[in-house]
């Protein structure tokens, strides 16, 4: 069984005056509702042009079984260095946040249907992202011919 572990550490000595902040979390990424590790991995390093909304990751119909009950995890890091640059990210045509230059994010993702795709759009200028998609039950697209 494959083992994928994600740990986070958040710290600050001055965000809350009078008390230092230290948060630590660790998770082993499992198939939905099981104690079996995820088995599939897709990674990429992509340039994102401005003015177009791109899909990141597969569609629900590119997974076998009930996609809503498949556990997937998405890591994205914006590799831009200009502090004014950011990437809007969202699901289902709804933007949720701005991933600014140098920021990373890590979320579970459960695609209820194809519309619930992960969408990204570069703002201010073209940017490069690094991403990893941890999953199970992905199926390759059928060849065109």
């Amino acid at each position, binding site marked *: 069984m494959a083992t994928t572990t994600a740990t986070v550490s958040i710290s600050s000595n001055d965000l809350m005056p009078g008390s230092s902040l230290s948060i630590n979390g*660790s*998770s082993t990424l499992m198939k939905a*509702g099981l104690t079996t590790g*995820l088995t599939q991995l897709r990674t990429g390093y992509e340039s994102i042009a401005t003015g177009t909304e791109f899909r990141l990751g597969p569609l629900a119909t590119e997974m076998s079984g009930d996609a809503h009950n498949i556990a997937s995890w998405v890591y994205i890091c914006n590799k831009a260095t200009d502090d004014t640059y950011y990437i809007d990210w969202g699901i289902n045509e709804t933007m949720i*946040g701005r991933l600014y230059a*140098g920021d*990373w*994010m890590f979320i579970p993702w459960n695609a209820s249907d194809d519309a619930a795709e992960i969408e990204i759009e570069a703002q201010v200028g073209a940017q490069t992202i690094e991403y990893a998609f941890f999953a199970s039950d992905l199926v390759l697209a059928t060849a065109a011919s």
Partner: protein
Amino acid sequence: MATTNATISISSDISSYPMRINSSMTMKKAGSCHGLEETTGMRTKKFGTVTTAAVIVEHDELTDDKAHKVYIRNTSSSKENFFYVAYNASAAAAATAETIGKLYGGDWMLFPYDGNVNIVVASDGVIEQTLEYMVFADGIVAAAG
């Protein structure tokens, strides 16, 4: 200016070559080199054995269109039980179009959030579970008197 650092480490043996991601970010204000200076503080909420939906982040407490960050962790240990997490106006996280994903026991997530719509959760109601969550804010709106 406060300095808040967040580091993620992911290791996986899904592929035959070991994969490791290490990434750090300093949480900054939107479009700025200055660090975030506000937070809601760490909160914990216990959910019982009835399916319960709740707003955990109220967007009207935060400035719109900013570079907030949201950290959420399911502190239970059960990999069979979960919370839905969604970006939605009402506390109905389970079947909304903007459901982000399911957070199983021990799982955590950290994502950029624009502060325009609430963050809501729904427990599966099978066992008692507890969430801990914290917003690293790029502007907190003072409550009206």
